[in-house]
């Protein structure tokens, strides 16, 4: 048997009997004990014979063989544990002083009982009965007051020391049945580990504690021998009787001391020998007594050989006890010689520290909160700030919008250098040289940041006017450009124009009451409390500094191409040499009258988002129905969910984001949304709307059921704002048709952003608008290059999921594709055509796509890791450099 099994504590052992059976046995034993007390009172002669001649002498043998059996059924233990079992115990911890003296008290009672046997207890049934009842009462009171088994069994019980001595190496372990959980009520608890207790006792670090146990074992043979040798009665007086007992105890204990101090014997081995000798001595005398009692009650005459044999029982028992003890010691030594194995067990204590040691990357400290957080390898500063749970705005994640500008207080040299796009954006923000865009920074060392870009100071906040070396407007004879629209395309166009010409007069017309803001973050306007704070992407003085005349809250009524002027609704006319249309797009609605209802919304502008939030709060809306399961619909559903609404998301297609995701990716997305509580319905269309007055009540679905809600949000895509262009006679299709220089059918009019229709180009994205604006600005001033679509990796703006989509979502014949394993938590697909990545998508847990995003965004060559990708191992992307 292995040491672990041999020394297994009671919590790792199973009882041979069910608990009810033990309870029955306990009650029976208690009744027998009380019966003894009654018999001792009523018929002392019989009672005393049975008690001292049978019951007590049998007990040591039981303690050698299966001490746990006795401890399970012991009447004292039972009454001691009744309060605990019934929940009436006060469960007080035993005071430290009592703990220290409990063993001596138990030994004292035991010695007193032995000493009192000859003069009193062997002859007085009433006294014995009283003693039995007395200890039962004491045991009960101990259990009533003290926790666990510290009120009697493990402390004051006079049988305790003898049990630990004879039962130091139980042949059969019967596990403790009283403690469903160990409450640690006592030291080196015998019930916890009966085979281990002796080793713990004898070598305890408390020398006095160990000495007390050794002393008892040492004196036991002398005590037993002296008692029995003096016989049940003495003629020489009790004083001498007691003196002989005391002398024998001292002599025996002295022998023990000599054995342990003069010979190289382990305390345990000496204790085993003394216990064996005590047992042998006991049965040398008690064996015939038991035999006599039995023969007396069973009316038979025991032959002499049986009497002799009964004396030998003790010798045999002693040898068995000694052998079992030595066997236990061998196993104990074996176990103790395996320190390495033991040390492994608690090592998991530091597992979390090892795992979350913060050593995976460089550390960034936030100046405002003084919180430091790691930047994992491959992550941007924006990723790390978001991971740390700190508030930060974000937008395009491509360095164009400038929503995530942070001031670098210390450690700027540990950030990756800024690229042209980032520098241009920082220049627009007036933060060049002081702040960085978190989405563009990779961190290699300690950095201190401030998330408030205004902390850069007023000087830096002033946007510096661009000062080109050559005024391209003068060179090409253009003096006045009018831009209609102040979104990313219109603002970028103005910025680029000013960069190319200091003299150019730039007029910007916008119907929006707000300056250029982060339209990508309007979802946060729905559930956030900060309103427009941080959403403005341009300083108020930018227009002044860059000499851009802004016509805010103004509507361009018409374009007179003949006179080359724009007529405003206010009646004013703005002449132009070149006109740039950046009128953007609007949300389409499921029904022409949809927005006539007071609880029907679209999400296109900050005003839309604020109106929706206001309505939800004022009307205490609880349910929202989002129509359209594209990117906008999913983001809107997530935002409304953040606001606390129960959201249902309807998608006409068979899957969400069907333009960006394959079936598996869409399934992961739907599973996630449903996991956070958003109900997703696909393959559904709305047959009619049910309204009540000005309020929509429900949407009836084509297949029968109706979806009721308090607010309805349409996210069905966008329609271009082409009215002005159409009225001006420009060629218009889905949008205003343009060539590769973003020039419309009128060579003096350009169209950029959502309103422009360029064959084969993806629209509706910020990076596209910015790139088209740069192309158009160059073309306006004769510096243009043909439009080249930026590499766009779509990122869903929901913080509980990493969703990326790039290019095509399904492979053509001849393409090579790699995918995740079907059961992986994250789903991904990479499509390569002649070795070039033409499609990539990823849907997985948050923060899991950073390497994927980096590699796909950079167009990194994947050929070195094809083998791993073929096996479905995406982690290999971490090894690829994006350079």
């Amino acid at each position, binding site marked *: 048997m292995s040491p672990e099994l041999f020394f297994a504590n009671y919590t790792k052992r199973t009882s041979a009997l069910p608990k009810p059976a033990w309870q029955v046995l306990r009650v029976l034993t208690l009744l027998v004990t009380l019966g003894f007390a009654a018999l001792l009172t009523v018929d002392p002669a019989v009672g005393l014979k049975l008690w001292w001649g049978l019951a007590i002498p049998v007990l040591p043998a039981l303690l050698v063989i299966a001490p746990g059996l006795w401890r399970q059924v012991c009447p004292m233990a039972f009454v001691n544990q009744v309060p605990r079992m019934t929940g009436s115990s006060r469960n007080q911890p035993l005071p430290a002083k009592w703990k220290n003296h409990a063993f001596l008290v138990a030994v004292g009672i035991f010695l007193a009982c032995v000493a009192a046997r000859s003069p009193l207890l062997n002859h007085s049934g009433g006294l014995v009965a009283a003693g039995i009842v007395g200890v039962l009462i004491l045991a009960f009171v101990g259990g009533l007051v003290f926790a666990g088994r510290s009120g009697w069994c493990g402390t004051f019980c006079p049988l305790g020391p003898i049990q630990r001595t004879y039962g130091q190496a139980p042949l059969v372990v019967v596990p403790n049945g009283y403690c469903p959980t160990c409450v640690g009520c006592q030291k080196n608890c015998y019930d916890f580990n009966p085979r281990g207790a002796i080793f713990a006792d004898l070598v305890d670090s408390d020398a006095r504690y160990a000495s007390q146990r050794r002393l008892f074992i040492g004196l036991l043979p002398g005590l037993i021998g002296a008692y029995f040798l003096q016989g049940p009665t003495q003629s020489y007086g009790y004083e001498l009787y007691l003196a002989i007992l005391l002398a024998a105890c001292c002599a025996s204990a002295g022998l023990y001391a000599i054995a342990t101090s003069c010979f190289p014997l382990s305390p345990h081995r000496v204790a085993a020998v003394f216990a064996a000798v005590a047992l042998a001595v006991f049965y040398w005398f008690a064996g015939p007594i038991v035999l006599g009692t039995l023969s007396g009650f069973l009316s038979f005459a025991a032959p002499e050989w049986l009497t002799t044999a009964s004396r030998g029982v003790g010798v045999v028992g002693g040898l068995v006890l000694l052998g079992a003890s030595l066997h236990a010691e061998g196993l104990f030594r074996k176990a103790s010689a395996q320190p390495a194995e033991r040390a492994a067990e608690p090592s998991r204590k530091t597992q*979390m520290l090892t795992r979350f040691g913060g050593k995976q990357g460089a550390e960034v400290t936030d100046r405002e909160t003084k*919180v*430091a957080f790691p930047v994992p390898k491959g992550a941007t500063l924006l990723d790390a700030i978001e991971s740390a749970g700190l508030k930060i705005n974000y937008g395009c994640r491509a360095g164009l919008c400038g929503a995530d500008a942070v001031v670098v207080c210390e450690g700027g040299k540990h950030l990756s250098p800024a690229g042209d796009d980032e520098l241009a954006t920082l220049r627009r923000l007036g933060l060049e040289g002081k702040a960085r865009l978190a989405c563009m920074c990779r961190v290699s060392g300690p950095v201190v940041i401030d998330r408030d870009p205004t902390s850069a100071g007023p000087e830096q906040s002033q946007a510096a006017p661009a000062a080109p070396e050559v005024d391209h407007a003068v060179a090409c004879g253009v003096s006045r450009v009018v831009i209609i629209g102040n979104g990313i395309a219109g603002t970028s166009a103005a910025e680029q124009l000013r960069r190319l010409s200091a003299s150019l007069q730039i007029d910007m017309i916008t119907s929006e009451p707000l300056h250029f803001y982060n339209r990508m973050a309007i979802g946060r306007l729905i559930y956030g409390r900060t309103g427009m704070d941080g959403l403005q992407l341009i300083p108020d003085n930018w227009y002044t500094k860059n000499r851009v005349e802004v016509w805010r809250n103004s509507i361009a009524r018409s374009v007179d191409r003949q006179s080359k002027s724009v007529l405003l609704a206010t009646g004013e006319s703005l002449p132009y040499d070149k006109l740039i249309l950046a009128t953007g797009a609007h949300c389409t609605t499921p029904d022409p009258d949809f927005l006539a209802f007071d609880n029907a919304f679209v999400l296109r502008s900050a005003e839309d988002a604020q109106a929706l939030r206001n309505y939800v709060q004022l009307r205490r809306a609880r349910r929202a129905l989002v129509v359209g399961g594209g990117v906008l619909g999913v983001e809107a559903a997530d935002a409304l969910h*953040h606001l606390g609404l129960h959201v249902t998301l309807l998608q006409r297609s068979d899957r969400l984001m069907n333009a960006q995701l394959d079936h598996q990716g869409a399934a992961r997305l739907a599973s996630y949304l449903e*996991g956070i509580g958003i109900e997703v319905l696909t393959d559904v269309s709305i047959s009619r709307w049910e309204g009540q007055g000005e309020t929509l009540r429900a949407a009836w679905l084509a297949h029968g059921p109706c979806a009721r809600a308090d607010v309805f949000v349409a996210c069905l895509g966008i329609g271009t704002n082409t009215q002005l262009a159409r009225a001006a006679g420009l060629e218009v299709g889905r949008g205003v048709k343009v060539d590769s220089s973003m020039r419309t059918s009128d060579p003096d009019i350009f169209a950029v952003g959502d309103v422009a229709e360029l064959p084969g180009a993806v629209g509706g994205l910020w990076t596209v608008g910015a790139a088209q604006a740069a192309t158009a600005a160059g073309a306006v001033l004769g510096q243009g290059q043909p439009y080249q679509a930026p590499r766009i990796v779509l990122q869903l703006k929901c913080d509980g999921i990493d969703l990326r989509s790039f290019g095509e979502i399904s492979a053509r014949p001849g393409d090579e594709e790699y995918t995740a394993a079907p059961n992986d938590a994250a789903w991904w697909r990479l499509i390569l055509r002649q070795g070039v990545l033409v499609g990539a998508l990823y849907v997985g847990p948050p923060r899991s796509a950073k390497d994927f995003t980096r590699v796909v965004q950079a167009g990194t060559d994947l050929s070195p890791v094809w083998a791993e990708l073929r096996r479905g191992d995406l982690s290999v992307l971490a090894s690829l450099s994006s350079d």
Partner: protein
Amino acid sequence: MKFFSYTDPNEQVTERVAPAGLRPVLREFSDEELDSLDSFVAELRFATGSRIVAVGERSDALLIIVSGSVRITAGEAGKGEREVDRLREGEAFGISSFLDGEASAIAATALESTQVLALRRAAFAQLAAWKPSLAISLLQDLAAYTSRRLRQLEAAC
């Protein structure tokens, strides 16, 4: 003599207290589970003396100490603020706010350079969506830890 795993009587607990004492949160989690959890928690380090949570702060994050120690106090700073607990590695705080989303009733201050994991309510919902079994395990672990803390408090009262 460490072979026997006796409960230390010097740290005796009452019958109402679980046997393992205040077993730290996440201690039984496997490496794989901790890796999965990584996507949903924030790793934060606070300098000595930093206020991690203030009384009345609307932070709904469960905070688990990875290293260092934290002093928990009740009452507003400078107005009868009193220490109610000191927590060490593996222990958690911010549990009430994490569970009910209400403002914190306690303040927590780093006694030394202290690293914590922060799990917000929203992140927990996301965890439950991605890894339901892990979320349940975490909740059970947290419930057991909270129960032990309550029992300890009961015993102290």
